[in-house]
Structures are given as structure tokens and as C-alpha cells.
């Protein structure tokens, strides 16, 4: 069962254990905690080449990059009980390990275990946060994740029952109906993690209730893991199922966009927009081989800018934030970072979100046909209306006094650096995906 980057997973789990073992002294020293987590994430990235197979070291690099940004945010993580900072860091590292397993697992059981690790740690990461809503959101997410886990396991059972093996069936293998049913059930389970309509409910509430740092990490990690898993699984079921996924993606994109248009609260807006992005990703996945590269490109670009947005929001408090309050709550630098992030998510060139959209629609035009593509493009450009809604208010913070401060903004800077890199040399990432 080659394909799993053992070293990376071991580094992350060891990091989690270390953080827990030193929980006492680390509770007060926030930056030491972040540094320790960073060490293990960087070690995991360095070890990614060993054992990495399908999904490649690229997915591991991206996951580790998301972890790095989120770990830089742990000092400003809003917890109900501040002593639980080490637990949160450990859960974060384990969520990263789970994502790696989900994305690169050598067989379907490994991928299932990975997804379960990811979804359990996501729910826990969020429930440790401050505020009234987290328990409710985490429980909803958990129940729905459990339902999708049962779908995964039932699907796994059907695949095993039909083929006698839990390896990924080779593409083009003879399809009995029960095998197809198994693959469909499993992909539906992974689609939950992607937050595809009509399986998006739990993820939606989790994204909007969690503290920004936790929500951003959960969002970026689960999307990445789900995309890579689906890219590996869905094409096996054949072109007609690819089309079904593509259409579900279109539905999701339209749904998320419609719901986001009227939102006047930043976190809920981002949650709905995450649904819309899941739709675009599924459209790419449904476009087959050409779309797969676009989907990976999209999810990495999206993850980078989503991390930027959530890093900018981190520390703004657990309550709902209306657009008008944003500048005052965030201050100069975070407002600017939020502007850039929102513009990228809206698909304003030359930011990465725009490149991602360009990469996407060529393959959907070929595979899904003109009408879905035109509808998808319409949803994509309509997103500009809601993403850019708060931006004039944010720009008006340019009046606010403020100097560039590195302390406390490390997460913003790291995510900003990633965004900048993708802005200037998008082709480099593409070359990594598609050598």
C-alpha cells in the first residue's frame, strides 16, 4: 500500500504528542507552542517526499502550508478556556495528519480513517472556541459527518463485497451495480467534506460559528483533502457519474452564490462563499482528467486566499461582525489584508483566485458543455458583487493611523506571502501539478 507519506504523518502525530506532553509549560508561552507546532509542520513538509505517491508531495506541502498559517494564528485563537491552547494545537496537527491520510491513502479504508480523523478533530477544534454557537454548530457538523461516515463505510463494504478488495478499483474496470453503488456512496461521503449541496449543512454552520482561525483551517484542509480524494475516486465510476458530480457542483455554486448575495455578516458570507467554491471545485472534478489539475490548482489557490482572509479576521471576537464594524475591529493592516483576500476570492486579477477561475472553465467547457459553463461563469462573476460589498468600507480605513507591525500579524504575513507567490508565478504551481 505504497503512497502514504509516512514521515509526514509521523512528524505531525509526534508533534501533537509533544505539544500535549509539554502542555503545562506551553499553556502560558503561546509563541513557544506555535513554534513547536511549526517545527513539526515544517518537518512534515520536509519529509513529504518519502513515501508520497498519488496526490503527491504537492498535497502534503499545501496541507503543511495551511497548518503553518493556522499555527501562527494559535496565539490569537479564541478559546472558551485559555488553558486548552495546547489541545487545540494538537488537534490541528492531527487534523493535518488526517487530511494527508485522506488525500494520499493507499486504499479506501485508509482514506476513510483519514476523513474520520479530520472531521472529528474539526468538530473538536471548533467546539473548544468561545461563544454560544460553537457547541451547536459542532454537534450538527458531527452528526452529519457521522452520517457521511456511515455512507463511507457502507460504500466500503459494498466495494469489498463486489471486488473482494478495498484498493481503489482500477479505472475502466468492469462495473457491477453494487460496486458502482459503493463508489457512489463513498464519494458522497467525501463530498460531505467538500461541502457539496445537498450535503453542505454541517460544514456551513461550522465555518460560520467557529473562531476564524479554526474555521479557516477546517475549511482549507477539508476542501483540499476532499478534492484529492474525489479526484481519485470519482473517475472510476465512469463518465456519467462524472457528469452527475459536475452538475451537483453547478447546483452548489449557484446555491452558495445566491445565499451569499444577501449576507451582511462577514463570517456567514465567507461560509456561503465556501459552499460556492466547493461547487466550482466539483465542476472541475466532474470534468475528468483535464479538470482534475484545475481542481487541485483551484483548491490550493483558494486555500491560500481563504487563509489570508481568516488570518485577517482572527482575533476579531466570536460574535457576528457586520460589515460596518469591520474596519474598527480589524485596524489598518488586517483590513488591507482582508481587502486583498476578498478581492482574490472574488476573482479580481491578478490575484490567485482569478487564475484559479481561468484554469477551471476551460475544462468544464470541454467536458460539461457550454450551458453549465456559462452558468458557472455567471455564478463566479456574481460573486464579485458580494465579496466586494464590504471592500469600500475597508479601504476607508486607509485614513486610520497605523504602522506596519510584524508582531501578532505573522499569520497574515505568511498567508499574504503565499498569495503573492501565487499571484506572480501561477505557472509554477501548475507545473508542479502537471509536470
Amino acid at each position, binding site marked *: 500500500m505504497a503512497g502514504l507519506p509516512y514521515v509526514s504523518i509521523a512528524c505531525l502525530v509526534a508533534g501533537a504528542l509533544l505539544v500535549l506532553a509539554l502542555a503545562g509549560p506551553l499553556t502560558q508561552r503561546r509563541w513557544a507552542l506555535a513554534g513547536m507546532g511549526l517545527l513539526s509542520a515544517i518537518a512534515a513538509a520536509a519529509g513529504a517526499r518519502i513515501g508520497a505517491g498519488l496526490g503527491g508531495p504537492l498535497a502534503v506541502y499545501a496541507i503543511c502550508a495551511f497548518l503553518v498559517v493556522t499555527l501562527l494564528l494559535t496565539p490569537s485563537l479564541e478559546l472558551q478556556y485559555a488553558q486548552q491552547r495546547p489541545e487545540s494545537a494538537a488537534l490541528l496537527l492531527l487534523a493535518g495528519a488526517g487530511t494527508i491520510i485522506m488525500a494520499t491513502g493507499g486504499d479506501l479504508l485508509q482514506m476513510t480513517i483519514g476523513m474520520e480523523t479530520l472531521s*472529528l478533530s474539526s468538530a473538536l477544534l471548533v467546539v473548544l472556541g468561545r461563544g454560544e454557537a460553537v457547541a*451547536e454548530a459542532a454537534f450538527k457538523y*458531527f452528526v452529519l459527518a457521522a*452520517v457521511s461516515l*456511515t455512507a463511507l463505510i*457502507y460504500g466500503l463494504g459494498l466495494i469489498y463485497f463486489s471486488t*473482494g*478488495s478495498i484498493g481503489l478499483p482500477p479505472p475502466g474496470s468492469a462495473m457491477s451495480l453494487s460496486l458502482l453503488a459503493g463508489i457512489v456512496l463513498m464519494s458522497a461521503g467525501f463530498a460531505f467534506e467538500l461541502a457539496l449541496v445537498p450535503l453542505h449543512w454541517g460544514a456551513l454552520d461550522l465555518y460560520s460559528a467557529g473562531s476564524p482561525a479554526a474555521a479557516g483551517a477546517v475549511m482549507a484542509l477539508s476542501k483540499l483533502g476532499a478534492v484529492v480524494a474525489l479526484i481519485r475516486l470519482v473517475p472510476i465510476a465512469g463518465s456519467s457519474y462524472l457528469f452527475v458530480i459536475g452538475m451537483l457542483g453547478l447546483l452548489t455554486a449557484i446555491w452558495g452564490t445566491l445565499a451569499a448575495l444577501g449576507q451582511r455578516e462577514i463570517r456567514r458570507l465567507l461560509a456561503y462563499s465556501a459552499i460556492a467554491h466547493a461547487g466550482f471545485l466539483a465542476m472541475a472534478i466532474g470534468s475528468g482528467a483535464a479538470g482534475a489539475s484545475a481542481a487541485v490548482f483551484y483548491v490550493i489557490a483558494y486555500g491560500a486566499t481563504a487563509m489570508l482572509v481568516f488570518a485577517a479576521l482572527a482575533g476579531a471576537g466570536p460574535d457576528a461582525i457586520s460589515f460596518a464594524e469591520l474596519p474598527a475591529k480589524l485596524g489598518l493592516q488586517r483590513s488591507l489584508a482582508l481587502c486583498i483576500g476578498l478581492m482574490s476570492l472574488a476573482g479580481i486579477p491578478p490575484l490567485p483566485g482569478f487564475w484559479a477561475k481561468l484554469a477551471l472553465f476551460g475544462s468544464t467547457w470541454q467536458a460539461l458543455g457550454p450551458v453549465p459553463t456559462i452558468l458557472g461563469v455567471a455564478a463566479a462573476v456574481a460573486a464579485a458583487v458580494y465579496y466586494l460589498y464590504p471592500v469600500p468600507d475597508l479601504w476607508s480605513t486607509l485614513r486610520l493611523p497605523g504602522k506596519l507591525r510584524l508582531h501578532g500579524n505573522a499569520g497574515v504575513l505568511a498567508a499574504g506571502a503565499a498569495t503573492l507567490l501565487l499571484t506572480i508565478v501561477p505557472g509554477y504551481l501548475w507545473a508542479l501539478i502537471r509536470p
Partner: protein
Amino acid sequence: MTANIVVLATSAILFSTGATGVMLRRNPVAMLMCIEIMLNAGNLVLVLGSRARGNDAGQAIALIVLVIAAAEAVVGLGLALVLFHRREPVDVDEPRAVQG
């Protein structure tokens, strides 16, 4: 081997019954119990596959799934207790801080 057919049908019905239970129940703990039924349905198919294929792997997988189910139940009950901490008895539809 009509037994295979019977067991396969049973697993499908169990899966749907469990799902119906998750939909009907309003008590978080009861919801979790119904999820356990759904997990059992999946495990049953694995064991059945092991018998049909004459292959031990299915049973080994079923054992691993039992571990997953245990982890799931522990976390789920913990989260349910957090919900119960404030309200009694808990209706899962009642807390609606996140919506819209």
C-alpha cells in the same frame, strides 16, 4: 446461499432504518444510537463480503471499523453532553444560534 441475500437485504434495511432514526429523533444521544445502527449495517456488509469472497480481509476491516465506531461514539457523546450542559431535555432543533 440464500443467506447472503437475506443478510444483504437486512443490512440495507438496517442502514435505512438507522437513517430514519437519525431523522426522527430529537434527543442527541438517541441520534447517536441510530448512527451506531447505520455503522453496524456497514460492518455487516463487510463480514458478509468476507464470507462471500472467502477472504479474511473483510473481517479484519470490520474490526478496524469497530475501532472507528468507538472513537466516533466517544466524541459524539462528549459533544452531546456539551449540548446538554445548558438545556434539558435537549431538542436538537432548538439551539439555532447559527442559521440563515
